[in-house]
């Protein structure tokens, strides 16, 4: 006897959900490319590649000499290696569909949604300085971990 079709649908949905979770976990646990940490992490938290779609990383890596107001230019080989790693590990699925304005993580819908309760004035506190300073509130940001339970917003 054939199992009812809803059973098949449920089994499929469970498998799909498991695979999405596994993918998210794998993305969270991704070890950062040492070159990326060294070159990009001097000026900002080495933002996890999953926070932007591949198209955004490509655009950013394509004009490092004018990188949000700073010259962040690299030699060709290093830029290639970092760019390939960022694109290979970029956001996937729904989040990859639309690059955020100016390819800024801080203007992505996920970032805005997650930080909705933060008052605009809080971002300007000297202890925080800028929304791009993840480590001000996320103590493990340097390691790519952004667990909500660890968040401490400084005064």
């Amino acid at each position, binding site marked *: 006897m054939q199992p009812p079709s809803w059973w098949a649908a449920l089994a499929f949905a469970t498998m799909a959900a498991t695979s999405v979770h596994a993918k998210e976990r794998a993305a969270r646990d991704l070890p950062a490319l040492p070159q990326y940490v060294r070159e990009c992490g001097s000026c900002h938290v080495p933002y996890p590649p999953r926070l932007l779609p591949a198209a955004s990383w490509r655009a950013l890596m394509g004009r490092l000499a004018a990188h949000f107001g700073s*010259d962040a230019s690299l030699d060709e080989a290093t830029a290639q290696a970092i760019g390939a790693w960022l694109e290979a590990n970029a956001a996937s699925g729904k989040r990859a569909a639309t690059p955020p304005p100016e390819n800024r993580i801080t203007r992505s819908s996920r970032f805005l949604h997650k930080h909705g309760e933060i008052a605009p004035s809080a971002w300007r506190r000297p202890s*925080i300085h800028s929304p791009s*300073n993840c480590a001000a509130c996320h103590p493990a940001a340097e390691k790519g971990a952004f667990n909500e339970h660890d968040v401490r917003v400084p005064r």
Partner: protein
Amino acid sequence: MIVKYVACLALACSAIALGAAAATPAALLSAYSAKAGAAPSTERGQALFRTTHGREWSCSSCHGEVPRSVGRHAVTGKPIGPLAPAANAGRFTDEARVEKWFRRNCNDVLGRECSAAEKADVLAWLLTVTP
């Protein structure tokens, strides 16, 4: 101090080619001075470092007025380790890295690359900063 540098230039320092990876701050200073063909000036270096040059930032904007302590990136707020070699042993010990940062940061501060003389001036001043 100038006498020392001139003596250094007259001796073999000019033979230290900019290109080797491992370096010391003193060797880099000698090489920049040799390339500039003049002794560096700590006064000029300090002035270059602390003043703006027609743009928004000076070197101090991120590294602090006296770069013996931790600086802060002007945009992101990320802490930047002290720049003065006396306060941070790793500084000015890798020539490729030094050149990369001079290229980027001079472009941000002056809108162009720095000359060898300017690099020598800044480095000479940084070497006078005590921890």
